[in-house]
């Protein structure tokens, strides 16, 4: 069942925003949108009248809630990358932040990396060894 059609872009965004905010306000914890739509009294028609016709008179409230959310949105990954103190926690060594941990060892299996076994590590240390071993930065092609 189609919720709406032939909307211009501002109306489309407003419709999506109100739908999502109404869902966030009224859905159960971890409830997905489809079961939520079925649970709402009147189903999708009732939701459509709330979102498009503002039948409950909460349209402005939903718009304001979404505007506030957009205003306060922060990408946590980007915020971490921009914060030297948080970024410091991802360094391998407290006294050598630019040095990678070289204890990781992987071998290529069907073109994909997997951790090397003890035997493979030992074999790789022997001269003329055919076992190739690599850290975390190598591409894992079956090219050897």
């Amino acid at each position: 069942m189609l919720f709406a059609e032939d909307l211009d872009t501002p109306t489309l965004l407003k419709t999506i925003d109100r739908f999502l905010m109404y869902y966030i306000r009224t859905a159960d914890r971890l409830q997905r949108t489809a079961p939520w739509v079925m649970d709402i009294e009147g189903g999708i028609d009732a939701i459509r009248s709330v979102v498009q016709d503002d039948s409950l008179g909460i349209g402005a409230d939903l718009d304001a809630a979404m505007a506030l959310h957009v205003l306060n949105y922060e990408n946590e990954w980007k915020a971490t990358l921009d914060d030297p103190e948080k970024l410091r926690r991802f360094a391998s060594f407290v006294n050598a932040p630019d040095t990678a941990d070289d204890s990781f060892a992987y071998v290529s299996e069907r073109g994909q990396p997997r951790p090397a076994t003890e035997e493979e590590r030992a074999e790789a240390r022997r001269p003329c060894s055919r076992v190739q071993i690599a850290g975390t930065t190598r591409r894992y092609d079956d090219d050897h």
Partner: protein
Amino acid sequence: MTIEAVSCQALSPADAQADLGWVEICSIEDLYVDRGSAALVAGKQVAVFRLESGEVYGLCQKDPYSEAFVMSRGIVGSRGDAPQWRPPCTSRSSTSAPASVWMRWAANHRI
């Protein structure tokens, strides 16, 4: 005296014989309280722990059971007043280590 710098001495019996002397690792402020950090000393990985008391302990970073370099990710705690530490890679509940088996490192004044 404010403690500012963390230094370590011997890393293993072999290193003890080689006598590295005291090697400065980092500022005490670089370590998180009751957390472990990994450090590189003379090319070897060590785990450094700063306790709330201000004491600093160290271990070899390599877990002898799993052979992974993860000891700094162990859990710091206490039993009574004695600081305790538990490795990250084992479910054995009896493997918590009393402070006596840790290597206690100096947190000494920066020169």
